[in-house]
């Protein structure tokens, strides 16, 4: 944790405006992480709200013992998502329109692109939680391998190796679902 962040966390324990700064720093990342894990806006907003409320309540007890504030915050979000999945007793629904709001495929291949994205997203959701988390940290948050290693409590080499294995599992899962990875299309 950088000095400035450490100071900010200490200030936030008694100063509401400092907590506001922490919120501004992390709300987009936490929301994005949760959204990709639950697949819909309503639950993502609900869980994001609960994650920050829980962080506020427990901030006084947080002590930096080598675990950065961001990792602590994401641990809260991770636990809430895990509880959410347990309560749902089902696979998360993937709402395509919300998952890819910024990209607008051409009308003639929109259905095909949407179908590919649905299959890819479903395959990602079928991965073990630690592998989903790795992909989200890497691509949704854009963290470096060293940062991911710190958050997951692993070595940088272990993260790279896990990323390799994750891609292999994902490809296998996609092929099982009839997707030709090399041709980037369905064979089914």
């Amino acid at each position, binding site marked *: 944790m950088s000095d400035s962040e450490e100071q900010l966390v200490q200030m936030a324990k008694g100063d509401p405006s400092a907590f506001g700064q922490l919120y501004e720093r992390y*709300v987009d990342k936490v929301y994005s992480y949760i959204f990709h894990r639950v697949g819909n806006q309503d639950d993502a907003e609900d869980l994001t709200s609960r994650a920050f409320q829980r962080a506020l309540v427990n901030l006084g007890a947080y002590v930096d013992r080598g675990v950065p504030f961001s990792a602590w915050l994401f641990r809260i979000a991770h636990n809430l998502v895990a509880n959410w999945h347990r309560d749902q007793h089902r696979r998360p629904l993937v709402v395509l329109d919300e998952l890819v709001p910024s990209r607008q495929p051409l009308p003639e291949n929109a259905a095909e692109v949407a179908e590919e994205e649905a299959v890819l997203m479903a395959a990602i959701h079928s991965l073990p939680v630690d592998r989903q988390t790795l992909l989200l940290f890497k691509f949704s948050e854009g963290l470096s391998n060293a940062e991911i290693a710190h958050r997951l409590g692993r070595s940088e080499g272990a993260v790279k190796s896990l990323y390799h294995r994750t891609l292999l599992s994902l490809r296998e899962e996609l092929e099982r679902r009839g997707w030709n990875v090399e041709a*980037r299309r369905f064979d089914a």
Partner: protein
Amino acid sequence: MDEHVKAEILAAHADRLNQGQDATDELLTLFPDADSDLSELMRLAARVHVILGPVYPNPVFRLQLKQELLDAARARSLEAPLPMLAAWREDAELWVESARRHLPEWTSYPWSERPLPPTLVLAALSLTGAGVWVYLRHRDVQRREQ
């Protein structure tokens, strides 16, 4: 190709994706002995990178949540709870949240929604202590009389 080398190349490829560059062809040129397996994985990673891109919250929700948190933080700083009570409160809040989820008929009462003010807690603890002291004194007196 060695698995360790593959992992390194894929990690470098992912870093470049995060910088906005798809370095698949460049890396395949640098490592001519790379098999088709590696090129497939890099193309797959590029697809995952696109689909898992950042998603931003609705600005209205973002603003409302910040306001709610700031209000809650101000209320908490005014209450200034005793440190030793923080852990008990956290346990109680987790229990209540769990009960809400699992008991559809759960009813909330206003007094259960917010913690007691520390002055009231101190008063309650003092009264309890005084009560215990009176009881012990009374018991000792009775024993001596017997």
